[in-house]
């Protein structure tokens, strides 16, 4: 990393990945040695439908600048229908965050299968760049967690 990169804004990004597709896709990105920004840190969940909106807000509160949720492609859910619920929940939640004036690019849902290691890396790179572009999370921060 160059000095310039080290001094520029490095967002904290939380990625919730379903165990069966996206987490495996992330593993594949590793196996293929496909680079993506280290800003992204993955939390493994059984299914994307396990992701509670509370977790997303919590991440922002605790200092995350972007949250991305990855699951199996619709129709391919290991649990048959989980990601369909994720899709509805997150569509509505993101729309609400937008309604409150929160930047739309801070949240994202992507469907990444276990075979899409390359795509996983691409998505993460793109998302990190998007978040970098909008800067640090100010609107959903909790100052108590910033005083360090």
């Amino acid at each position, binding site marked *: 990393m160059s000095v310039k990169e080290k001094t520029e804004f490095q967002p904290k990004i939380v990625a919730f990945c379903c165990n069966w597709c996206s987490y495996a896709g992330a593993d594949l990105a590793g196996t293929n040695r496909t680079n993506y920004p280290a800003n992204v840190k993955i939390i493994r969940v059984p299914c994307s439908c396990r992701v509670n909106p509370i977790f997303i807000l919590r991440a922002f509160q*605790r200092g995350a600048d972007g949250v991305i949720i990855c699951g199996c492609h619709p129709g391919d859910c290991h649990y048959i229908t989980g990601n369909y619920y994720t899709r509805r929940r997150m569509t509505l939640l993101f729309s609400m965050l937008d309604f409150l004036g929160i930047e739309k690019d801070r949240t994202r849902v992507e469907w990444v299968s276990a075979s899409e290691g390359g795509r996983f890396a691409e998505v993460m790179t793109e998302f990190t760049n998007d978040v970098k572009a909008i800067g640090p999370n100010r609107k959903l921060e909790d100052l*108590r*967690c910033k*005083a*360090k």
Partner: protein
Amino acid sequence: MLTLNASQLDEFFALIEKKRELYLPVENKTGKSEYKRWVEGDKYSTALRTVKSAKNFFFAKSENLYDLKMDHKNVEVIDTREDIKEFVIFGVRGCDVKSFDILDNVYLQDPVDTYYKNRRDHGLVISMACSKPATTCFCALFDIDATSPNGDIQAWNVEDKFYFNPLTEKGDAFVEEFKECFTDEDSKPVEKQKEETLNIIERLPFVNLNMEGFGVEDKLKAIFDRPEWEDLSSTCIGCGTCTYVCPTCQCFDIKDFNVGDGSIKRFRCWDSCMYSDFTQMAAANPRLTQTARFRQRFMHKLVYYPIKNEGIYGCVGCGRCLVSCPVQMNIVKVIKAMGDN
């Protein structure tokens, strides 16, 4: 009496703000008024009441107490209190001024609550007499004279003039400090306004409620056991709105915020006896039903508090709960049901 023209008010405020923090009621976007830190352009609101009471200045909605820092096995306690700047609250109504006395009885008695005392010591209260009381006002029931409020300095607004009268040493010093702002004028208009206002107050519907039986120890058990509690509380939703708008409700909870990096911020925040999770820190809430919790709130204001405090009721008749309760239950309805009105 010391006077000030309304047109000079903003100048006066600017001057105060230079040396102290100034808070006063300002109309918000909903047309109601609320206390806020004065900034250039804010207009003092003469509205009768603010939605929230003024207790927040001394008994804050939430307040950091101290931090705990954990380093592996060691715990360090860090006092996070910052020096409080001198501040002035302008335009406090008589009822709210009286509420400070009620809070003082709780927080300044031994053991003194130093957080509260710290704020109290640094605050100066300029009260404002009422001239247009609402039918939901009943401060007179508790012997509060809204036309002559307490405070460090009492004030009146008659037409386009403001009249000031310092009542405490602190008030005297303040007036001295800002003496160039005032002129000395005849206080007749104040007397006239007082008289007119008292005239209205007499006609308010709740100022003559029968308070017999409240606040005396030997009637305590009888009131406690009254069957009416059940019916009165039957639709209480336990939301705590009454306690949060009440100027005299004084309960708080102490909570920890885990920052996640090994440090914990311990803070206190308002609590409400109307909540089922009130007083859970020791074991469980001793009041198991909403009826018991409802009864507690009114028993405290009307019976327990006066018994302990020389007959002073824990209510100042500001009328906020009459306006804010989602189900329109309030202390007046309780007094009426219990006090044979």
